[in-house]
């Protein structure tokens, strides 16, 4: 699998670090509801299909970015702003 880094261009996946689901919304600071934090922290949508996720080009420019990838096929739609 090759990942299009927004700065360096297309590079092998082994140069990148995976950072998990990027569509999750972190509860606001001061949220007292522990269930909200639990759901944010411990549960996953884990779709079989389109997925927006964080990657870091850790062996390159070290930039973090968001990527749209289909988890059923590993086809990458591109970088998401």
């Amino acid at each position, binding site marked *: 699998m090759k990942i299009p880094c927004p700065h360096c261009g297309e590079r092998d996946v082994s140069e990148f670090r*995976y950072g998990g689901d990027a569509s999750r919304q972190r509860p606001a600071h001061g949220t007292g509801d522990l269930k909200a934090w639990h*759901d944010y922290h*411990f*549960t*996953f949508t*884990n779709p079989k299909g389109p997925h927006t996720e964080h990657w870091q080009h850790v062996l390159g420019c070290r930039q973090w970015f968001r990527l749209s990838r289909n*988890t059923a096929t590993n086809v990458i739609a591109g970088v998401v702003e």
Partner: protein
Amino acid sequence: MAKGYSVFSLLRHALKPDSPWPMAWEKPTPRSSYDVVIIGGGGHGLATAYYLAKNHGITNVAVLERNYIGSGNVGRNTTLIRSNYVIDGNTQFFEHSMKLWEGLSHELNYNCMVSQRGQIVLAVSPVQLDVFARRGNIMRLNGIDAELLDRGEVQKLLPYLDYSKDARFPIWGAIHQARAGTVRHDAVAWGYARAASQLGVHIIENCEVTGMVIDNGRITGVDTTQGRINAGKVGIAVAGHTSEVARMAGLRLPVESHILQAFVTEAVKPIVHHVVSWGAELFYLSQSDKGGLVFGGHIDGFNTYTQRGQLFKIQDVMQCAVSLMPFMSRMRLLRHWGGIQDMTPDGSPFICRTPVRDLYLNGGWCYQGFKATPASGWTFAHTIANDNEHDLNRCYSLDRFEKGRELDDYGIGNWTYKQ
């Protein structure tokens, strides 16, 4: 249907070659309703159905498999069994599984080729050997066999490892569980399917669940590619796709699907007589009865449902293999494959009730799915039959993260893609 396999039935069929062996399990058309429907005809689903019938007398059971029996992860693993877990809950559960493995071929009247050749986990630093000593003490306090080996003892048992002064990870010793080993994975699926079928369980292949019928917070049936099937209770046992199936019931789970690769070399004469695991990286290897070296490593590290592994992980695992066993550099890889597993935030499974009444979950199987098969089915059957967890699987509840009762046996923390 074949009632019992024995030396006499073998002789009878040998003398009458024109009489074919009967089907190992029946292929019934589904009824419109069952007491219990198990989604997933893998090792865990079939074992659950078997123990529901055997231990709890519930025989009006259907196992729904979307493909054919043996097509899923039960046939895609590296077939290892062991019970060397550290955290209370895991320790007892996996030892229960080991005890069931030890009698399984007789229990099922099916040769599962249980081979207790022993597992040796190599320590690559004195600190790691201390950690293994602690693990061994915990195991022995729970009545599980464990033995600490020093470098000289390891060298006698495994003379083919790299003991040179240039070894990147010098071998300091090991922990040995003599009762660990391997099992023929296909035979586990076929054996449980046949034994369950003989007790009256319906095994329905090519029947994919497409929806769940939930009425007032209670499940009453499932929609399938073969029509609606009503059910008193429904159990999910589809590890790899647990999130997708649970979503049909509106559940969002602490599960992410990841790929784990496995590898087999060309067949060679017997050289590796144990299961060998390495403390420097996650790497484990055994030799199959056919002679191929079967081995694997860590997950690729990002969630995916494709069964295609990435090249960089193949390279990582090969580097581990050659670093530990230099002779492997001259061997050829015969094949490799990937399986999809449920990674959980603590690397431990779920065998529990769910927020939907009469819907039960068996999932979250990461590295330990195959070795857990008998105990998983045994405890899941208990949970379904009694609408309550057994003491052995009480720790595998869905709310353990809320309660601060994670079972992080690997000590990695709540990162599914690092577990």
